[in-house]
């Protein structure tokens, strides 16, 4: 296939694509995505968004899963380079752990896009602003507390100190809530491991130690739901309680918002949109276009039944409403990043 024909072919595919797509550019044939944890719902939705976008653009997308193993992540990227993909997208298991990988990719002129967290020596990264996400959810929670909880905010943070992203969310949430209720306090700062049973367990212990809590914040849906379940298991009424979740990656939060009276706010992070944006960024990097160091993928707090704007549910499948999600305007720059934690 000559280069001209390739261009023509790519262009014809792109013509059929959505408006706003990178039109008439050279399309990479194959993108390799090394994901840190493919079985997690969040990343399943990221992959879903990527696949949708790649299909629109006529690009082949292949995924390798590090399954939370840093060594396996490096191996996966190596394998992709050996296979000869055109662009690499990586969600680091740990952002420090892929520095040499970036160096090697650069040495081989392999275009590379990061998802999630910034890494020394990167070209570009597609990510939500974790701090901002937490912050805006905090602001919304503060407003809710003023209206419904008598202006009192005693927070139990079901956190995950393991990752800088999740620490930023927690910090943002507390900072946000304080803009509305300056005397808001953090009663418990927990490590819920990001998984539901651990979150349930530590929350139970914490609530027993001091139950003077009226807001439960979870750094992901598993954490907020674990906290809520601990509350319920302790035999407490949900009156006067607010639960705030983060992520909005599956059906769990929708189910909770429909059935649990206290589960009122969900900080949506639109993983599908992250995947979508990452593929677009990959195309740009492949073509050598200038890209910002941080391409922000939008987030927004969803309050009450807001989720229906962005998602529709049929049976056990959830589909994203692209028009609404593409309408959420991302910030140009994050308020705080991992660099600010040090």
């Amino acid at each position, binding site marked *: 296939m000559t280069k001209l024909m390739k261009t023509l072919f790519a262009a014809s595919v792109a013509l059929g694509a959505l408006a706003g797509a990178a039109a008439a550019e050279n399309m990479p044939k194959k993108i390799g995505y090394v994901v840190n944890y493919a079985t997690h719902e969040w990343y399943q939705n990221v992959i879903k968004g990527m696949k949708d976008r790649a299909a629109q653009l006529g690009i082949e997308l292949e995924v390798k899963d590090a399954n939370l*193993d840093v060594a396996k992540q490096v191996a996966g990227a190596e394998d992709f380079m050996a*296979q000869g993909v055109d662009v690499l997208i990586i969600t680091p298991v*740990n952002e420090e752990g892929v520095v040499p990988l970036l*160096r090697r990719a650069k040495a081989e002129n392999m275009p590379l896009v990061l998802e999630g967290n910034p890494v020394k020596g990167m070209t570009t990264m597609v990510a939500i602003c974790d701090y901002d996400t937490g912050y805006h959810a905090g602001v919304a929670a503060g407003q809710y507390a003023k209206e419904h909880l008598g202006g009192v905010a005693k927070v139990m943070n079901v956190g995950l100190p393991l990752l800088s992203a999740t620490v930023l969310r927690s910090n943002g949430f507390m900072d946000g809530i304080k803009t509305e209720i300056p005397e808001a306090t953090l009663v418990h700062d927990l490590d819920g491991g990001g998984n539901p049973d651990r979150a349930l367990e530590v929350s139970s212990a914490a609530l027993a130690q001091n139950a003077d809590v009226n807001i439960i914040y979870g750094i992901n849906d598993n954490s907020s739901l674990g906290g809520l379940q601990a509350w319920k298991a302790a035999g407490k009424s949900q009156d006067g309680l607010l639960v705030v979740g983060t992520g909005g990656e599956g059906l769990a939060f929708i189910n909770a918002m429909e059935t649990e009276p206290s589960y009122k706010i969900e900080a949506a992070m639109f993983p599908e949109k992250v995947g979508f944006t990452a593929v677009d960024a990959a195309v740009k990097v492949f073509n050598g276009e200038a890209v910002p160091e941080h391409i922000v993928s939008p987030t927004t707090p969803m309050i009450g039944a807001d989720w229906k704007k962005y998602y529709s549910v049929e049976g056990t499948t959830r589909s994203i409403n692209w028009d609404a999600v593409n309408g959420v305007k991302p910030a140009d720059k994050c308020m705080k990043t991992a660099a600010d934690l040090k």
Partner: protein
Amino acid sequence: MPQSVSSLAAAPAGPSLLRRLARRNEIALLLSLLAVIAFFALASDTFLTTRNLTNVLGQAALPLVAGIGVAIVFISGEVDVSIGSLVAAIAIPLITIMNATESFALGVAGALALGLAVGVVNGYLAAYLGINSLIVTLGTLFILRGGVYLYTGQRAIPDDVMLESFFQLGNGRLFGVVPHPAVIAVILLIAFAYFLRHRPFGRQLYAVGGNPEVARLAGYNVRRVKFVAFVISALLATIAGILLASRLGSAVHVAGLGFEFQVVAAVVLGGVSLSGGVGSLAGMALGVLILQFVSNGLGMLNIATEWQLVITGGIIIAAVAFDELKRRRA
């Protein structure tokens, strides 16, 4: 004076060399490995390339190096599962010292010192105090991982000085072809295979694992032999950890999670018995390579993680069951 027996020497040839060879576990493993490679070579057009094959060797280097140590501990009749946390723990002194002194050698010395200390503790508790080694090393697995989290505050420690020598160790290639970790793994394999076969201490390891009572009567210091096995294992895990740290360019607190399972599975697959005294490093290496090639090949075929887990689990059960059936028939 008793007559010396050394005056008479005539080496008789073993009459059943071929038969003994055919009974060797390693032959079956080698055939399995070749079958795995042949399968993926046919199924994927990107599998059988120099680049990919050498990649896999580089990736296999870590479990290979740590596997030598685990195999030696198994052979001595004990178990070591602490290596998963150890590979993460030793990266802390390695990177912090390098950051502070800009010296690769000092960093490695610091890592080896920590590895040595862990080996000594494991060995002392298991060999001298006689606590079940699965419990001891499960305990140190927890303690080290918790310690890493406590010390780092669950943040990776970046390599700030970025020494070229350190980068090359895990990421460079000999003659631009063979990854350095693979070279190191092969050298260590040969050295330890020689050690196990041709040094009296190597034979003591087998004897102690095969029958500790007999070994004691033969004048071996059973506890010391087992103790040394734990120290060797910890030091080799340290080397694996250094290679990993170089590939990660940092001390990553979550590095090596589940590494102990991966290595133990490969070692057992390689025919090294959990009950001691049986097994070879060649078998262990083949076990590691089989699992690594399966993982790589399934990735090349774009098979999802969940299927990879199911297939790997199936392979382990099938292989060990096959080995057992063969042994029962023999």
